[in-house]
Structures are given as structure tokens and as C-alpha cells.
């Protein structure tokens, strides 16, 4: 029986052996390829991403306007961040293995090392504060913020999965000190070398050395949002696609040239022992530099000029100056005032947002639309000449009013000098004289004769109501009230509307960019789209249907505006040197005061009224602000009414006006007379918001712009003149 049982026993062992052998065969024969692949994967460490450097933005002379500057972050492992000021043993235990070999802990028992590590953690927070020169409370606040943020992520993930699990952020180190300059890197490494939970890691920061003058144009970068991740055009490329912790351009040129500025990440794979796997190395490709057509020095000087002009007129909240190189339509400067410094944006955002008076966040040069006022008159005259409504010699008599005998004559009057109430009688004027004196009555007749369709066709040919071609996302198209536009809005085309349009009022609206391009069109006699990126092709020219004689009359009128004693800008803007004379057109675009603060009255359940006053540019803006401030939507029955306006102290019914001055620098012949055979090289437009008088406020600025252009671009007004580069390094 013993032997029988022994046989049974051996049989049992054999059975176990067979089971094991079968399992081995399953693993090593049938599933071998699967496990081979698994082993190949496990041998590698998680690939390390090699970041690319975002391309720089340069001006047309090569000056750096925006660039990634290498910075350094001091990061702390999340485990320690979560542990905070009084870490327990579990927080420091993971470091035990790595520090045990340190000379400091040689031969120490685990308990002693852990006690030392705990006090090291407490010391870390103090050292961080001391290193950056902030209070320990500040560091504690940052620590608590990171902790709260990660816990929120964890909550969201737990919510999604319906159970709690660790998230990636909990295994990472988070920056307690960010944006350290290269010069402090070594110092930081030394200061935190003894803390194995602190690492000093490279990072980068977008800097704009040019300061506030270029902020709006260059734009900002910000963390990518969900939409960008979803609509990523590079999604198929694992190295080019956006990662959630990357930045992308959201405004200005940073947005416009995002595809070129952005590079392609690299990747570095190490095996488990830290050896580099050469075959899997992917070199990062840095983003391309983008060269703008803008001259940084010109932009800076013009910005200062505009700032000074704004200060001179307390009622002016700000303005814009756009300078265009006529033959190429390169935007040489695109100034918006007021502006802000990109480096301070995050810190000063609330103040910038709440400044609804001067609106420093508005990109006035591209995104604000204004009635063009009288600067559109040359275009209307050109239309009239070409359509045969008037001839070069046609004279229309201006009596100061269009209908001097009617009781409501004042509604269609010619312009007054200031608020004197004295009507201006131009008498019988031809085209040139009408432009010179900016005669409204002449334009009234012309507008009514031309009709809506032909007038707006010319507006369209001159680019009004369409994007200028710079491509900025901030750019507004303006309004061109052509018949379709009017029909869509059920507007009746009345003679009154035609009269308003003919003098640049009513529904026609332009941006300063469009105004500057309009000036270039006047100067060159053809329309082209504007260009802001230097290596984009020059836009195709499109000719306006007009004869040389017509153009000459227009330009001559504009010449006389500045250079004739009866010209509207003669007093304020007369400027010429031996080679160039300033030609231009003033414009005063009437506009109502702009609301800056709103009173919001809400009624609670008992009927008691509650009133708050919030900054806002429109009632929708004020409602949004309310929802943001109080965390709830404003009820529909709430009363939202504007209480404060710009200009300060203005009543909502007042008639205010924006001041325009647009012009070009016309080459002169030897005798000091304009040489119409040579086109003007530079055109520009100046807008002063609520500047009242195109001549009085805009004119002097126009003259200073002309002086400055000569000063910066040199006597030849060549934007690329090499000797100028030497003069203005």
C-alpha cells in the first residue's frame, strides 16, 4: 500500500509539473511574441520630451521684438508639496533609499534619517522664501495653491471615473519659484542641492523687449485651450501636436504666425539604466523666426508722440497711428495708445480691464471702428468725377447751409470753426477747393447725385468694409453700407443718409488701418492689401476707375489742405522740407459719448432695490461683469443704465467727435511744387479718439508724424535704407 500511495504522491507531483509545464509553454511559446514586445517596452524609460524654442518675432531691420528667454524653475515634488509644513514619515520615506548613501547619513539608522529629512522639508520652505526674497507666507500660499489645484484635478478625474485614483500631477514636481534668470541657475542649484525633492529645471518665458509700444501688435501667448487641442491641425504628428501644458499665440502676431513660430518637439528615450537610445532620438525643431514689416524704432517714437498728444488733450483717451509704405503697403508702424507692458499683464490685468475710460486693452489701430469723417471726401469726389456727376470745373455754391431757407437749415450745414456758431461760407467751390476747405455742402450735393450704390462701390474698391489683409484676428472690417447691407438691416436709403455718407458719417465705419491704406490709395492711385509679415507676398494692386486728371485733382486738393492758407490743416499741419511736402485730409467724425460705467439695479424678492455701479463699455459688458463679480446671472428685469461717459463729464446726448488726420508725404520738384509724376512713398493716418477737431487736434500730430518719418526713415523715406540702420542700431 505504501508503494501505491507513493505512486499516487509522485502522480500528484507529476500533475503539478505538467500544469507548470503547460503554463510555461503557454507563456513562452504561444504568447512569447506578446511578452517579447512587453519586455521591449518596459526596457525604456518614459520618453523625455525635448522642448523646441518658439520662433522670434523680428522687425524689418532684424531687431528682436519677441523671443523665448530661457528661464529656470525651482520645482518641488508633489508629495512634499502635499505634506506641507509638517511632513509625516510617509512623505519623506520615498527619499530614504536615495539619500542613504549620502555621506551625511552614512551609518545612520532609518529613524534618524527620516527625522533629519522631515526637518529638511521644513527648512526647504524657508530656503525657498529666502532665495526669492519673499515672505514664507507667500511661499506657503503658492504651495497651498498648487496643492488645491492638484486636488481639484483629482476630484475631476475621480468624478469622471467614479472612483478616486492618483493623477499624473501627483507624481510631478511643481514650480514654487518660476522664471529665474539664467544667471541665478547655479545659485539655485547650490541652494537646493541638499533637498532631493527639489529640482531646478529649465523653462522659458516669452519676453517682448520692445515694451508697451508693440504689445498689441505682437500679442500674447497663453496655455492651449480645449478647442485648440480638439481642432489641432497637427494632431496626427505626435511631436507637433499641442500638449495641454504648452502655450500658443492667442492674439496679435503670436496668433497670426502661430504655425511658423511653433516648432516641433523632440524626444529622447533612455533605457532603464539611463543609456541613450540613439535610434529613437528625435531632434526638436525650433520655430521659425517671423519678420514683420514694422520698424521698431519708428513704432517706439510714434508711440511716444501719440502718448504726448494724448496728454495734451485731457478729453482724448487714446488713439492710433498707422504708417504705411505706399509701394509695398508694408505697415511700418501700427501704434495704439494707451497700451500696457506684456511682462506686467498678468499682474495688472484687473486694473487694465476695469479701465473702461481709456481702454488700454483695446487694439485701437486694428479693432476699433470709427466714422471716417472728412478723410473719405477725396474718395467721394473721385467717384463723382469718374461717374460724371461733376467735372473738374464744376462749381457748387456753398452758402453755409444746404437749404439756407428752411427752418431746419442747421441740420445740413457746412462745418463751423470750433463752437463759435459762425457758419462757414465757402462760396462757389470746385473739387479742389471743396477738399481744401472740406466743404460739406459740396459733398451733400455730390452724395445725393451719386446715390448709394456708386458711392459704396468706390468705398469697396478702396477697401472699406473688408479686411485690410494684415490677417490679425483682432482686425475689424468696418462697415460699408452698400445696398445689400442696407437691405439686410431694413434701412431706407434717404437723401439724408446719402448726404451723411458723402461726408463720412452715418453707417460707414473704418479702422485706423483702413484709413491709412485709404491714404496710400490716394497717394498711389491704386488699392492694395496691407502687409505686416515681411515675407508674405505684396498684395495685388487693383485700380480704381479714375483718370490721371481725376487723381491729380484729388491729390492737389489734399496738397492744398495743408499747403494752402485756406486749407483746413494749414494752420496746424503745414510741413515741408526741401524734398517732401505733407498732403493730407482732416476729419472730424461725430460720435456720441462712450459709456464707461453702468448702474445696475436689481430687485430682490421683497421688492427692495439694490444698486451697484460697475465699469463697462456696453450694457452687455456690464451684465457680464456683474455675472463675473457676483457669480450669478443678472435677472432679466434688472435695470442696466449708463451713468458715466467718456469724455469725462459728457452727457449722453452731447455730440462729440473723433479727430482724424490722414496724409502722405508728396515728393517735391526743384521749385518746391509737388511732383505728381513721383508717387508718395509713405502714407499714414492719425486718430485721436474724442479729439474733436481733425484740424486742431489731428493736424499737429500729423505734422509731427511727418517730421518723425523724415527723422527715422531718412531724407529718402526708404524704410530699408542701410545707412539708417547704422544710425538707429
Amino acid at each position, binding site marked *: 500500500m505504501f508503494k501505491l500511495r507513493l505512486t499516487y504522491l509522485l502522480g500528484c507531483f507529476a500533475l503539478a*509539473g505538467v500544469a507548470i509545464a503547460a503554463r510555461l509553454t503557454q507563456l513562452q511559446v504561444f504568447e512569447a511574441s506578446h511578452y517579447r514586445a512587453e519586455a*521591449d517596452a518596459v526596457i525604456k524609460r518614459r520618453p523625455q520630451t525635448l522642448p523646441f524654442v518658439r520662433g522670434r518675432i523680428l522687425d524689418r531691420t532684424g531687431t528682436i521684438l519677441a523671443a523665448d528667454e530661457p528661464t529656470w524653475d525651482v520645482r518641488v515634488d508633489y508629495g512634499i508639496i502635499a505634506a506641507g509644513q509638517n511632513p509625516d514619515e510617509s512623505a519623506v520615506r520615498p527619499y530614504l533609499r536615495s539619500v542613504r548613501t549620502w555621506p551625511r547619513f552614512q551609518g545612520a539608522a532609518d529613524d534618524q534619517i527620516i527625522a533629519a529629512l522631515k526637518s529638511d522639508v521644513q527648512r526647504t520652505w524657508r530656503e525657498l522664501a529666502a532665495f526669492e526674497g519673499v515672505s514664507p507666507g507667500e511661499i506657503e500660499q503658492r504651495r497651498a495653491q498648487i496643492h488645491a489645484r492638484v486636488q481639484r484635478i483629482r476630484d475631476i478625474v475621480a468624478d469622471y471615473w467614479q472612483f478616486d485614483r492618483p493623477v499624473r500631477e501627483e507624481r510631478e514636481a511643481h514650480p514654487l519659484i518660476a522664471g529665474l534668470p539664467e544667471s541665478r541657475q547655479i545659485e539655485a542649484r547650490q541652494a537646493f542641492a541638499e533637498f532631493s525633492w527639489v529640482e531646478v529645471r529649465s523653462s522659458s518665458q516669452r519676453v517682448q523687449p520692445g515694451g508697451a509700444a508693440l504689445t498689441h501688435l505682437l500679442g500674447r501667448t497663453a496655455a492651449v485651450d480645449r478647442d485648440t487641442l480638439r481642432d489641432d491641425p497637427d494632431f496626427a504628428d505626435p511631436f507637433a501636436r499641442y500638449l495641454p501644458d504648452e502655450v500658443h499665440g492667442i492674439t496679435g502676431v503670436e496668433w497670426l504666425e502661430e504655425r511658423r513660430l511653433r516648432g516641433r518637439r523632440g524626444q529622447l528615450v533612455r533605457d532603464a539604466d539611463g543609456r541613450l537610445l540613439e535610434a529613437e532620438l528625435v531632434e526638436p525643431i525650433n520655430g521659425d523666426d517671423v519678420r514683420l514689416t514694422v520698424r521698431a524704432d519708428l513704432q517706439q517714437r510714434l508711440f511716444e508722440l501719440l502718448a504726448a498728444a494724448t496728454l495734451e488733450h485731457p478729453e482724448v483717451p487714446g488713439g492710433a497711428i498707422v504708417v504705411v509704405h505706399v509701394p509695398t503697403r508694408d505697415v511700418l508702424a501700427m501704434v495704439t495708445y494707451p497700451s500696457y507692458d506684456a511682462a506686467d499683464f498678468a499682474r495688472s490685468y484687473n486694473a487694465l480691464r476695469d479701465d473702461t475710460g481709456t481702454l488700454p486693452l483695446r487694439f485701437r489701430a486694428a479693432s476699433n471702428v470709427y466714422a471716417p469723417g472728412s478723410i473719405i471726401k477725396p474718395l467721394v469726389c473721385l467717384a463723382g468725377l469718374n461717374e460724371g456727376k461733376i467735372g473738374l470745373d464744376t462749381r457748387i455754391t456753398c452758402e453755409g447751409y444746404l437749404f439756407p431757407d428752411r427752418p431746419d437749415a442747421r441740420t445740413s450745414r457746412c462745418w463751423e470753426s470750433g463752437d463759435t456758431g459762425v457758419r462757414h461760407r465757402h462760396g462757389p467751390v470746385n473739387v479742389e477747393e471743396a477738399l481744401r476747405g472740406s466743404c460739406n455742402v459740396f459733398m451733400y450735393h455730390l452724395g445725393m447725385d451719386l446715390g448709394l450704390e456708386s458711392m459704396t462701390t468706390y468705398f469697396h474698391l478702396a477697401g472699406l468694409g473688408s479686411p485690410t489683409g494684415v490677417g490679425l484676428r483682432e482686425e475689424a472690417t468696418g462697415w460699408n453700407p452698400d445696398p445689400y447691407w442696407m437691405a439686410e438691416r431694413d434701412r431706407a436709403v434717404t437723401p439724408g443718409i446719402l448726404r451723411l455718407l458723402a461726408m463720412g458719417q452715418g453707417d460707414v465705419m473704418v479702422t485706423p488701418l483702413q484709413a491709412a491704406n485709404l491714404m496710400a490709395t490716394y497717394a498711389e492711385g491704386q488699392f492694395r492689401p496691407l502687409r505686416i509679415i515681411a515675407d508674405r507676398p505684396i498684395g495685388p494692386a487693383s485700380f480704381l476707375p479714375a483718370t490721371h486728371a481725376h487723381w491729380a485733382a484729388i491729390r492737389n486738393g489734399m496738397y492744398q489742405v495743408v499747403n494752402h492758407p485756406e486749407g483746413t490743416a494749414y494752420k496746424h499741419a503745414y510741413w515741408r522740407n526741401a524734398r517732401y511736402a505733407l498732403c493730407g485730409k482732416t476729419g472730424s467724425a461725430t460720435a456720441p459719448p462712450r459709456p464707461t460705467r453702468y448702474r445696475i439695479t436689481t430687485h430682490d424678492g421683497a421688492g427692495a432695490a439694490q444698486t451697484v455701479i460697475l465699469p463697462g463699455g456696453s450694457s452687455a459688458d456690464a451684465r457680464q461683469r456683474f455675472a463675473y463679480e457676483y457669480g450669478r446671472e443678472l435677472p432679466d428685469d434688472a435695470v442696466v443704465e449708463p451713468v458715466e461717459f467718456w469724455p469725462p463729464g459728457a452727457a449722453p446726448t452731447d455730440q462729440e467727435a473723433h479727430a482724424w488726420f490722414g496724409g502722405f508725404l508728396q515728393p517735391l520738384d526743384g521749385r518746391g511744387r509737388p511732383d505728381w509724376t513721383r508717387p508718395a512713398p509713405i502714407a499714414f493716418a492719425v486718430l485721436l479718439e474724442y479729439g474733436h477737431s481733425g484740424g486742431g487736434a489731428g493736424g499737429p500730430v500729423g505734422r509731427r508724424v511727418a517730421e518723425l518719418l523724415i527723422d527715422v526713415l531718412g531724407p529718402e523715406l526708404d524704410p530699408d535704407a542701410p545707412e539708417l540702420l547704422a544710425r538707429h542700431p
Partner: protein
Amino acid sequence: MTRTWLQFDAPSRLILAAIAFLFLVGLASIYVTDTAAIGGHDGPRNATRQLVYLCVGISAAMVVLRIGYRDLGRWSYAILALALLALIPLMMAKLTHSTFGGLIPERRHAYRWINLGLIDVQPSEFMKVAFIVALAWYLRFRRNYRRFGGLIRPLLAAAVPLALILRQPDLGTCTLLLPVLLIMLFMAGAQIRHLAVLVAIGLVTLPLTWTQMRNYQRSRIVAVLLQSDALRRAIVESPQRYSFLTDRRSAVEWKADSGYQLVASKTAIGSGGLAGFGWGRGPYVEHAFLPDRHNDLIFAVIAHQWGLVGAGAVLIAYACIAVGGAAIAARTTEPFGRMLAIGITSLLMVQTIINVGMTVGLMPITGMNLPFVSYGGSNLLSNFLAIGLLVSVAQHRPFLLSPKPFEFRQRQRRRSSVLVSAPRSRGHSTARAASITALTNGSMSGGSKRASRISSSINSLIRSLYRSLRWRSTNWG
């Protein structure tokens, strides 16, 4: 006394050759895990130590051989008491959570080792051998375990060391001792239905045991089940239904959490394929992803390096030990020796099956060494002690005239005829000689000098015959 103490018979030689092979395979694997990995800057530290342990183990086995298992058997209860005594400080350390000044270090929340300066000793390893020796000594002449009541005493005797070892905690040693105990009782002739009742009681109390287990022990058992993708998916979908097993999170995190060792060892084995990466090659040798790869999971390293071929060779070597041990047990007539041989063989086999089973993912991972292969001083020493005892059993075969012990009839109705039974062995010359002796002599005077003399002369005759035969056979070959 038929042989000098260093002469081995065929089963012993088979066993010793298998052990030599296993040790070499193990040493080669320990050596490469020392040197190939990134942490191996100390040189082949573990391999050197393993060689020292080998010397200690061989010396200990020779001492055992020299003394002889029967003389040791007389001291078996004392040895067991000594081993139990060594477990007590560990128990105290566990209860008081103190390391006694570093004497009993805590590792992975367990108190299993006594620090003797140069080496750490794991008393439970020696406990295993002492327990088997004592159990064999207890069972040698008894018959009361043929009744159910008679099983109580050995079970109670086993409960004491088991309880002490469980407290350390060392689930692995317990899962080893219980099957060995059952096998020894079974081989000693205990009624199968009694043993079945015992096993049934164990199965019935399984849910209770489940609730009494520690979390990590439970999660190791669950980890084996969680290898199934379908089960993991089912848990994620309806966690309530499986809440007795585990929660949803461990099902999702299984691969990185409770299943990490298992996944790593399976990947190491599977990626080895048919022929393996070769000695010292392969990701799991060159990198230290595999935890405990030089001791508990060393079989994975072997399968990784030498593939199915190498793993199969190792399994065959263990099969040789099993066959050799069974042959020794079958050939000895001395009850104590027979029980001892069975106990030692099953100890080694169960240890092997559990270790390899857990490495390939058929069983939960417990702290279990692969005999003669894994790194570890105490284990190697205790295994060599066991082998010393086993070979010693093979060496001492004095009771040529004695009846075969534990040869009960299958259905034991008539008590009078119990002890007399015809020897049925006819395989080997020695055994045949023994049976011839027994038949011619017609008595059972096991100690008689005359019988001994006769048997020894017959034995030497047969041996010389056998040698000449073998000589010729080799010539022919």
C-alpha cells in the same frame, strides 16, 4: 552498515547530480543579477556569498551524514524544541514592535530574521526540517493515526510552530508545512477519508480565513485572479458585485500595483521564448525591474535567460529529486527513515511547485524560495541539512530482514495479519536481496547479528556482480 558514509547509491547520486545542476544554474543567475544590473557595483556579492553558503551547507550535510539520521532522530524532539525556541524571540519582536537593538530587523513589516552579525538567520527555515524530523520520529511505529482521533496529536503538534510562523508573518512557510504534514500522514497510512475530512474542514473555514487575512495577503491572492482581463473588466463595470474580492481601483491599477510582480515575472518568462536570451542577456537580467529576482523569482530569470529549454531542464532536475527521494523511501525498510525520506522529498517538491507556480502566475506570490537555486543562506543550509538526512537514509539500510513499514492493507479488517505482508519489491538487486534474505530467514529479528552478517555478504556479492556488469556495459557502450 553496507556503505561508508561517503559512498552513494544510485538514487542518491541522481539526487546529488540534480542538486549540483540546480545550484549551478542558480549561481549563474545570481551572478548575472549581481553584475549585469545597474546596481551591481559591488561585484558578484550575492554569488560569492552563495558559494560560501554552499560550503557551509555541504559541510552541514556531511556532518549529518556522519552522524546518521537515526542518531539524530533520537534528538528530534529536542531539535524541534530548539527550533521553536528560536521562533519565540521573533514572535516577541512582532508583538512588541521592537527590533531588540537591531537583533531582529523588521523587513517588509515582517520579523523573520535574527541578525547574527555576519549573516541573518531565518529560524523558520530550520523549523521546517526540524518539524519533519520530529514528525517522522513520532509516526515511525505508531498506528493510531489510522483512526481519526489519532490525527489530532500530530495536527496539534504542527499547530504550535505554524502559529508561531504565522505571527511573523510568514504565510509562505505555513502553506508549505501544511501540505507536507498532510502528505506525511497520507504516506504513513492515514485513512484517506480522514484526511479528506480535514481538507474539507479547511475548505469550509476558508471564508473565515479570508476575512482574517491581512489586506496585502488578500490582494496577493486576488492578484492571481486579476490576471484575467474579463474579471478586471467585470469588476470595473460592477464593483459592488465583486466587493468581497477587491475594489474597483485595484482592478484598474492592478498592473502597476498588486499585480506588478506577477506581470514582471510573466513578462520575463514569456519574453524568454523557446531558447531564451542567453546567459546574462535580456532586459530582465540587464535591468532590475523584477523584484526579488535573485531569490523568490529566480525561476523567471532562468526562464528569461534560457527559455523553455532551460526552465524545462530545471523542472526535470526537480523531477529527478522527486524520483530519487521516492526511491530512497521505497528502498528503506526502516520506518523512521522512510517517513523522513517522504517528508524531505515532499518538502522540496511542495516548495518547488509553489515557487514555480507563483512565478508563472498559477498561485499567489508568497515569500518562497526555489530550493538550491534561490539566493539565501538559511534556506540553502536547511535544504542541505534535509538532503544530508535523505542521503543518510539511503546510506543506512540495516533492517534488511524487517518487514516493510507502513504497509497496511487497503481494507484493514483483521488486525492480526497487519504486520506480516509479503514484500513485493522486485526492481533492484539490493531490494531483491533484502527480500530473499527475509524469505530465507523467515523471521523478523531485525537486530540479529547473524542475519546482518548474511545479508552483508550477500549484499557485497551482489554489489560486485553489479559493478562487473556495469563495467562490461560501459565497455560495450
